[in-house]
């Protein structure tokens, strides 16, 4: 089992950035008013933040990172590793993390890595940057996590368009001797990789002019093979099957009970999934914050965004214990337990596209 514990790591701060442009799912005219109401009630997404074309995930991560570094008063020359976790990159090639290293003004000796993950990305990303800081003997790292899914979801696909929002986040992590151990339980199952997929544009189905053609898949779903395909029932059943056992294994591995956890922060998949998981775990609503009504499913960004949006005031100046659980594309899922010690959390930043440079 990929069950392991990382030592001496402190999460010093988290910042989140969302596009300034807000859309309301009540205005989603592709479906009937009744369907919109049902969608909002069940899936839980009232409003979403979406970018204009030309804005990238790294733009929002950069803004979040700059604000966080400023509030932490970190010296940029001390940042020795940058991990960018996302499934939506600036370019097909090269890697986005190198661009961020330059734009953030980090030194050439800073190790920059792109990790391609979506919904499970924050938990995996924490484990990777924490593992590298420890084994490479480095002191400070920046975990930049986010996604712009709105541009990959077809407008005329009611199963994806009203679900996804965009966001970029930054998390500051440093070696701190004696910090509470952080346990992880990471799992994956590639046999379900077709449950969330963009079929064309990679090597398996090379891009052609045909890839751009729209097709009607079912009532309410028109999209091309360059758009996100989401098999809702498959993803839902996967979540119900895997997430709770994964969390329970983590808790028993770490000799921990849910009573000792102040907040459980789930990936914001959709309200129905998250509420069902909550009931299965038998925990109170007050313990499990939701931000999906405000921001939609922001893929890899959803956990840090939820912490900033829903828990900032509650955990301010406190020593809180958070269980994070992420699951989705790949399929891939994992959970971890972190400690917040006076974490620096700037207010959510709104991203506005800079006027032409």
């Amino acid at each position, binding site marked *: 089992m990929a069950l392991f514990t990382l030592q001496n790591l402190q999460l010093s701060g988290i910042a989140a950035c969302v596009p300034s442009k807000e859309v309301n799912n009540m205005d989603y005219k592709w479906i009937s008013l009744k369907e919109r109401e049902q969608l909002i009630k069940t899936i839980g997404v009232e409003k979403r933040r979406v970018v204009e074309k030309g804005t990238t995930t790294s733009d929002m991560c950069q803004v979040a990172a700059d604000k966080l570094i400023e509030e932490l008063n970190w010296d940029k020359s001390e940042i020795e590793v940058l991990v960018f976790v996302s499934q939506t990159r600036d370019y097909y090639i090269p890697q986005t993390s190198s661009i961020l290293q330059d734009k953030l003004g980090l030194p050439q000796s800073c190790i920059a890595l792109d990790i391609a993950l979506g919904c499970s990305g924050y938990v995996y990303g924490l484990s990777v940057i924490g593992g590298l800081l420890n084994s490479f003997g480095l002191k400070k790292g920046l975990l930049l996590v986010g996604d712009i899914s709105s541009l990959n979801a077809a407008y005329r696909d009611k199963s994806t368009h009203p679900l996804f929002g965009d966001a970029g986040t930054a998390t500051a992590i440093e070696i701190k001797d004696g910090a509470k151990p952080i346990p992880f339980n990471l799992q994956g199952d590639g046999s379900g990789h077709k449950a969330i997929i963009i079929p064309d544009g990679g090597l398996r189905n090379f891009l052609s002019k045909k890839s751009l053609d729209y097709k009607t898949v079912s009532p309410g779903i028109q999209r091309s093979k360059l758009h996100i395909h989401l098999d809702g*029932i498959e993803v839902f*059943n996967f979540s119900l099957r895997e997430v709770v056992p994964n969390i329970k294994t983590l808790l028993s591995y770490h000799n921990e009970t849910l009573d000792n956890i102040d907040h459980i922060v789930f990936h914001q998949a959709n309200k129905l*999934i998250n*509420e069902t998981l909550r009931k299965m775990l038998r925990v109170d609503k007050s313990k499990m914050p939701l931000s999906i009504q405000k921001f939609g499913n922001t893929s890899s960004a959803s956990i840090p965004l939820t912490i900033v949006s829903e828990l900032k005031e509650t955990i301010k100046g406190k020593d809180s214990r958070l269980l994070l659980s992420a699951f989705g594309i790949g399929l891939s899922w994992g959970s971890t337990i972190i400690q917040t010690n006076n974490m620096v959390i700037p207010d959510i930043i709104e991203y506005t596209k800079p006027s032409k440079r």
Partner: protein
Amino acid sequence: MNTIEDFILKIESEFDELEPGKLKPESSFREMFDWNSINALVLIAMVKTEYDVVINADDLTKAKTVNDVFKIITSRIK
């Protein structure tokens, strides 16, 4: 309490738009209310929460009536 009557009551409480008493064991799901993938998810969630049983897309395709779904559920209760 794993009766079909109880199952129907649970469905009725989950779907507001369903007129109480209208759903019968022999009713077809698709005809009874505006079936779509969101309703399928709601049903799956309810069945998982109430019976700790997972029903999948295949089950929903094969099952024609309320009773068919109920049989799948009871056959899987541990």
